[in-house]
């Protein structure tokens, strides 16, 4: 179904580069070095535009539109036509598109110091962004000579409050994993394997790796669990709360098959629930089993999607023995999800973090656990706002992929990613040089960290922990009273 139009202007030098770059078959070389455009196949991934040496090609929205003025929009009608033809569930990828659901980050404004206290210049004074994630005991212990005994359970130490979200090998390429791992190590933060196992070539990045245990248990074995700084139990993700995953057999080839421990060509299906977790007490047992398997040397993270009753869910997780709770919001990305689920299930991360942080405080256990926020963090200001609402740190998935070239065309589920990220086609995966990719990820996170320091300094805050849950740093604009109440903030001007 045609959404976009591919156009070129007189600058075209007929080098046919665009045709070579297009992995969706939308641009083909015809006879006599002419270009043939199959507009209906274009995903607007912008690969051709970025690669055109003459700057002669561009993509526009298709000018044709269906009759307006009806309850049914263009997209509604297109989707009905598609489903009437195929009888299938609509697939999509990346984050939810719900246009009428507010992006609350954009309605939050940050504070700054004026007169009554000084702002702090990050170029002149130390500005601390280090974060420690993990459990804290209820009190101190002293030895017989009165010295404090270190009774802290294992922690993750981050030099900056930005981590990379879980993206599995299979959904994305090994080169992406390589770039993420190398960048995380250099940045002093962590990357996350997702549920597809850890390729052996990445074992040396053990100290910067979080390995995931999801419902399919793909690639989970003792060495895997112990080749990590922390283990994440994935209950759900923001893009598709309540449902499992499905990696088609055509992506289960070669090393993906070996790493996932799934036979080649066989679909890898993650069940919707973990079949050993049907309730919160089961989660406590899995947390404990994993701690036993890793000799109580590593923190355990439990990742959940932000759903309606996220506050009591988080409270239950905090009491399950988990060290860190990771909450993925409504706009969280994915490599493939049913479109209806992606766009209609779950709640925005801003509201989820605010209500979880508040609930954990009311239950007096906020200091016992750490909280990671993800799902639609687009820039450093979003990260600062998430922390001021109550998160210890944030993690980024889509933003990291963008640093590697992604233009969010939301076609990951096709496996034809022209940027070589969400694909296993060796012709395409080679388009990402892991070293160059790592350098770009490092640049991105360093840039955000600099901006975070600048924002903190403006507020007179010189350590990130003094920003955590500091809701007075935020004011709302364009929000109703209920929204302000849930976010726990005042209105701008108040």
């Amino acid at each position, binding site marked *: 179904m045609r959404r976009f139009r591919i156009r070129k202007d007189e600058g075209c030098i007929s080098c046919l580069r665009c045709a070579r770059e297009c992995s969706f078959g939308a641009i083909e070389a015809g006879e006599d070095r002419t270009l043939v455009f199959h507009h209906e196949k274009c995903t607007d991934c912008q690969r051709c535009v970025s690669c055109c040496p003459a700057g002669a090609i561009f993509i526009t929205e298709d000018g044709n539109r269906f009759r307006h003025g009806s309850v049914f929009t263009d997209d509604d009608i297109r989707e009905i036509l598609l489903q009437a033809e195929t009888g299938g569930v609509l697939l999509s990828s990346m984050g939810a598109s719900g246009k009428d659901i507010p992006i609350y980050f954009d309605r939050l404004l940050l504070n700054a110091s004026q007169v009554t206290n000084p702002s702090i210049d990050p170029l002149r004074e130390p500005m601390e962004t280090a974060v420690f994630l993990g459990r804290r005991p209820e009190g101190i212990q002293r030895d017989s000579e009165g010295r404090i005994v270190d009774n802290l359970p294992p922690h993750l130490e981050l030099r900056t409050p930005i981590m990379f979200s879980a993206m599995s090998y299979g959904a994305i390429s090994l080169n992406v994993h390589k770039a993420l791992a190398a960048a995380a190590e250099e940045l002093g933060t962590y990357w996350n394997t997702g549920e597809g196992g850890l390729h052996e070539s990445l074992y040396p990045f053990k100290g910067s790796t979080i390995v995931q245990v999801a419902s399919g248990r793909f690639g989970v074995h003792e060495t895997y669990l112990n080749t990590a700084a922390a283990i994440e139990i994935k209950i759900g993700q923001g893009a598709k709360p309540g449902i499992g995953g499905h990696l088609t057999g055509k992506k289960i080839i070669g090393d993906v098959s070996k790493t996932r421990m799934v036979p080649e060509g066989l679909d890898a299906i993650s069940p919707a629930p973990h079949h050993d977790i049907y309730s919160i007490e089961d989660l406590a047992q899995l947390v404990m089993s994993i701690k036993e398997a890793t000799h109580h040397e590593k923190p355990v993270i439990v990742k959940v999607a932000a759903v309606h009753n996220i506050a009591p869910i988080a409270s239950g997780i905090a009491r399950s023995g988990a060290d860190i709770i990771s909450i993925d919001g409504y706009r969280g990305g994915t490599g493939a999800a049913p479109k209806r689920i992606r766009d209609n299930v779950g709640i925005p991360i801003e509201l989820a973090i605010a209500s979880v942080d508040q609930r954990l405080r009311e239950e007096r256990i906020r200091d016992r656990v750490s909280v990671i926020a993800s799902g639609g963090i687009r820039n450093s200001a979003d990260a600062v706002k998430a922390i001021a609402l109550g998160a210890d740190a944030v993690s980024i998935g889509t933003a990291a992929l963008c640093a590697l070239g992604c233009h969010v065309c939301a076609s990951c589920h096709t496996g034809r990613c022209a940027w070589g990220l969400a694909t296993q086609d060796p012709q395409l995966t080679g388009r990402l040089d892991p070293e160059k990719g790592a350098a770009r990820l490092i640049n991105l996170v360093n840039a955000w960290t600099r901006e975070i320091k600048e924002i903190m300094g403006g*507020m007179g*805050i010189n*350590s990130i922990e003094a920003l955590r849950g500091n809701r007075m740093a935020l004011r709302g604009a364009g929000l109703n009273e209920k929204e302000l109440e849930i976010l726990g903030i005042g209105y701008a001007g108040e």
Partner: protein
Amino acid sequence: MKKEGEVRISSGCAISGIFCRNGKRITGEAIRKSIAVMHNRSNGLGGGFAAYGIYPQYSDFFALHIFYDSQSAREETERFLDKRFDIINLSKIPVRQTPKIPDPPLIWRYFITPLPHLLQDSQLDEDEYTSRAMLRINDSLKGAYVVSCGKDMGVFKAVGYPEDVADFYRIEEYEGYSWTAHGRYPTNTPGWWAGSHPFSLLDLTVVHNGEISSYDANRRAVEMYGYPCNLLTDTEVITYILDYLTRKQGLTLRECSRVIAAPFWTTIAIKDEEERSRLSYLRKMYSSFLITGPFSILVGFRGGMMALNDRLKLRSLVAAEKGGTVYFSSEEAAIRVIEDDPDRVWAPRGGEAVIVTLDKEAAV
């Protein structure tokens, strides 16, 4: 217009403190003179004093100083106290009426001790039993406000310039071994009596100059542990944090200073291994209580005083010594006016607590 307590008000300030290590009890005249020098650092919207060693004849009992908006608030509060405590003595606090201190509330003093059978049933120690009752008065009894509730100590505060507050309370008639004073410069409020400093819980008093940028992170953390913050002032939060860390968590004041004015990670990194692990433990364990932004505080406690600056030293704080007496102040002039020939004058470094205590033989 919202008054303080309903909205957070920032303020600048002057602070001053005198501590006699040898336990010698001096009248309030010296501290009045000292804080009066810094008249310009206040704007007449708040002043106050804390004194230790002033009630030796009642030193086993909790001394309550309470503000009441009305007689009915007093009657209700006295009924509340009577159910839970033995009231050994009660009286109005004597004041000298002056036009400079208008509209005072009713100001009462009580010496109380927990009823033994209730204390036993509560399974709490008497400090916790008493502090919970006092927090409850402040949180839920309308028109009643507990100004101080420690033993052998008291807080005298009002809306006005500190020297006028001293005259109002006749503090020259009290003798104590430890005095702190505060002059306030709130930015935009009519000022109210309870919002003045010192702020206090049990034996702990805090006077504070600054505006902390970590306020809401700290407030939300300490509220979690049963300290409702009603005044929305920095000082209230700092007092509760110190009470929580010392009395509930068992930290020393020196350790507390490493939590609230924690050394930078880069500083911790160059310490020897034992110190490094101690300091990083305190930062990780109590990260919610790191205080950022400018502050200089004087913390009074039974038998001692702590002076502490924020870790960047964004507020002035000077210390001096003469014989067995230690002085702290926002400005050196406020020390020199009462001791013109100190043995030593110095500016404590940011984050470096100066803690003084009574000499052993002088311990009360």
